């Protein structure tokens, strides 16, 4: 199998997964109890006419999908209806146009709100991920190299403890500490900053980003340390390391040229698989620090019962993770030559 076949297969699979998520996302909101329409318009002050108007506005008067009026299997609907006029196809059609519906709470298009917030999340994940990988890799290598020394045990214990920290709790503790040490208590910018010059605004934002990123880094570095440590321990007991040593290479050369790339392979896989969990962490961090990102949006949507927002947020998160996963697969194929010629 050459690299292109590998990439093509991965691309097809990612596409398939996205389709699966799109379908899942639609039906999840229709199957589970609490019809979003009724949830959203439960306000007793609304007249039946007003409710009907809202139903029409959100397209909830249409059948869910051809032949099925609602998800209740005992209430089969008409099959003669135009398939293009069902909720599902309207949903897909809107998705293709980039429309995710109107937020119940903000009364603005969900895509617009999420679009603004996506970048904040990418900023948080990007910074946190890079930092945690650097810390994890460096300490993982040190720990494996100096196996069975106090340094190794220190890294091991730190890694295990960091690994078992609940993300939101660590955030709360850091926030608590930060609030008494002059750190901002949340959000992305100090109110009134918008009139300041760009550079001051940027500094202000980074200041706000510091504690969320720190939380992210601590939570994920533990796992990366441990993975890197055990993967490198495996690599360092391989025969080709003995060959490298017999070749007269120095310890540094062996680590750099023979161990690092091989030891990184499992880490790349882990990072790829981890992306889904990463998002879980981001929801918690963003809710604790009121960082205006996707995870925070999801959290707010839950508490406000803002279903279009919840639906759109989940979809965007899921698709981002699938795409990021695809990128990680590509990276792996460049790192490991065995993938190309399997």
């Amino acid at each position, binding site marked *: 199998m050459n690299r292109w076949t590998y990439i093509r297969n991965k691309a097809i699979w990612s596409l398939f997964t996205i389709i699966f998520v799109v379908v899942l996302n639609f039906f999840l909101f229709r199957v589970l*109890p609490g019809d979003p329409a009724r949830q959203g318009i439960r306000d007793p002050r609304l007249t039946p006419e007003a409710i009907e108007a809202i139903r029409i506005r959100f397209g909830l008067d249409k059948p869910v999908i051809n032949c099925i009026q609602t998800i209740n299997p005992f209430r089969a609907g008409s099959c003669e209806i135009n398939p293009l006029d069902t909720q599902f196809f309207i949903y897909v059609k809107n998705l293709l146009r980039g429309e995710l519906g109107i937020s119940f709470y903000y009364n603005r298009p969900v895509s617009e709100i999420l679009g603004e917030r996506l970048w904040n999340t990418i900023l948080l994940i990007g910074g946190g991920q890079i930092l945690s990988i650097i810390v994890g890799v460096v300490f993982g290598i040190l720990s494996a190299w100096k196996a069975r020394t106090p340094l190794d045990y220190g890294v091991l214990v730190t890694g295990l403890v960091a690994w078992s920290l609940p993300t939101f709790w660590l955030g709360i503790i850091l926030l608590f500490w930060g609030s008494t040490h002059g750190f901002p208590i949340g959000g992305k910018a100090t109110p009134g900053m918008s009139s300041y010059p760009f550079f001051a605004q940027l500094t202000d934002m980074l200041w706000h980003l510091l504690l969320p990123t720190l939380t992210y880094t601590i939570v994920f570095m533990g796992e990366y340390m441990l993975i890197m440590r055990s993967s490198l321990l495996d690599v360092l007991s391989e*025969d080709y390391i003995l060959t490298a040593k017999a070749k007269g290479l120095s310890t540094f050369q062996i680590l750099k040229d023979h161990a690092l790339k091989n030891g990184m392979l499992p880490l790349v896989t882990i990072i790829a698989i981890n992306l889904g969990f990463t*998002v879980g962490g981001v929801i*918690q961090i963003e809710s604790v620090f009121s960082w205006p990102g996707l995870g925070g949006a999801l959290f707010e949507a839950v508490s406000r019962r803002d279903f279009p927002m919840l639906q759109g947020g989940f979809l965007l998160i899921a698709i981002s993770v*699938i795409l990021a*996963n695809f990128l990680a697969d590509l990276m792996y194929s460049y790192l490991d030559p065995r993938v190309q010629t399997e």
Partner: protein
Amino acid sequence: MSIQTVEIKPIIPSASKNFWQTYRQSRLGIAGLILLLAILLTAIFAPLLAPYDPKSSEGVGAGQVYNAPSAAHWFGTDDAGRDVFSNFIYGARVSLIVGFFASFISVFIGGTIGIVAGYYGGRTENILMRFTDTMLVIPDLPLIVVIVALTRPSLLNIIFVIGIFGWTTTARMVRSQTLAVKSRKFVLRARAIGAGRAHIIRHHILPLVMPILVVQAVLVVSVAVLNESTLSFLGLGDPTALSWGQMLNYAFARGAMSTGAWWALVAPGIGIIWVVLGLILVGQGLEQVLNPRLNTHHLMPSRPTIKSEAAARSGEQVLLEVRNLSINYINEGQAPACAVEDVSFTLKEGELIGLVGESGCGKTTLMLGLLKLLPNAGQIVNGQVYFKNKEITTLSDDEVNKVRWRGISIVFQGAMNALNPVRTVGDQIAETIIKHLPDFDSAKIPARVTELLDLVGIAAEHKEQYPHQYSGGMRQRAMIAMALACNPEVVIADEPTTALDVMIQAQILELLDQLRKKLGLAIIFVTHDLGVVAEMCDRVLVMYGGVTAEYAAVDTIYNTPLHPYTQELLKAFPDLTKPKKKLSSIPGYPPRLDDLPAGCRFAPRCPAVFDRCRTEQPALHELAGELHVVSCHLVEAIK
């Protein structure tokens, strides 16, 4: 959050030691067990331990909101004036209940899918694993949040949702373990016996998948505990079951931050960490039992050489001289294992010496000792190695690095593992030139690599390929090319032909022989195969149980051997010139290096054994005339 991703490689547990004995060695595992037991007992005896009823604010006034820790309230009080300590104790119940039941669901689903996919293979496996991969990529916490938000937040719902979305890693892991077990020959043997699928799954697959499943279950519990607390913190918990996550939710949302009530925030967090850390540590301990990781690797320094009085040297002009070399393996709490004892030999320019012995006789240790490549536990306890009159065993790492490969290079056995899989073969050869010949014109290196590959019969187009694209024979040739890259004077060939087909083996041997003649190399040829040695060596050193059994010119070894081991070994060797001859075998087995017999190491298997052999180790007797060294009491008479 991401404990699910911990990688447990498929392994075949050995039923070697009793479970508890091995587990006990893992300090982390013990710590985890203690943490878990403590919290488990707390949860079970919550009504006895809690000073206050968790639901009512009995004994606590409305004015006692966010009271600091005191004798009456060890952990202070919360936003409604309830006792944090009591809530903490009852919170353990919720966490553990959700954790255990949810993980039961996950492990059951994951285990079933994994075993079915792994054992049945084919289309079934394809579909199941595609589905698993899809579920694995979909971020589970957002999905759980969405589903719980859409349903009624009850404990039962939470258990089900967490359980139903937590099985993917288990499925993957169980599948790869099942595949690993299935590919083992004992499963094929069971099929050959006539066993059906049900029998094989029950008697051969399950017993070997179960341990992995247990480790996995422990880790899945910790994920479930974390997920539950996160859901509760996000306000999606069961309002009737006050869990740690919920305590944090209330405290965080109801002003604990602004009032500075740190106790309301810290206590529940400690509870979560306690349980999760305990579970992870127990997981580590269990893994240690299943897959006892080697505690050493090749970059760990070996023990320093014990300097010894230099014995008189032979005085001959030789390239390499090994004098009375002894190497021990030292493991804490065990008697040192004498892997090599008092071995001496010399090597002249262009000479080929054969080092023969069965597995575990110390021949590889001896070779590694020559270049100070011993593993962590290895120690040179006596003797010297002179290479061009320079003593090597006491050199520093930097000084030895100059001798390695430049002066003495090694062709390792099993070249698949001895070559780095992610670097091209050409690159790995070039690396040695760059390291040892800094004056070499870097523009000419590619040409030199091509030349070296050509020397061993590999076409230049394979230069940019990776080891896995080579066949076994080609890898061994590439390894030889690499060994020659810096024009060494001595090449150690450590079983270079083991595991190769007879014809490829013959090709490699001929190649080595030609190179020796062409380049004037001195070769130490390590092997278990007496026939190979007879074909090409000048001198032969036969090792048994770490000591020299016999050392002489090749003709002497084959035609007038004096050590009973050499004699018996020759009889066990099939001789095509006399095909009808019955083979004789040596009864018994070679000794283990950590359990050597008191006297002569061959005594338990020797046909000519007498009393003295069992108590006294024979000295190395040097016979008069041509070089012939034998360590056997019987030789004294001849001498």
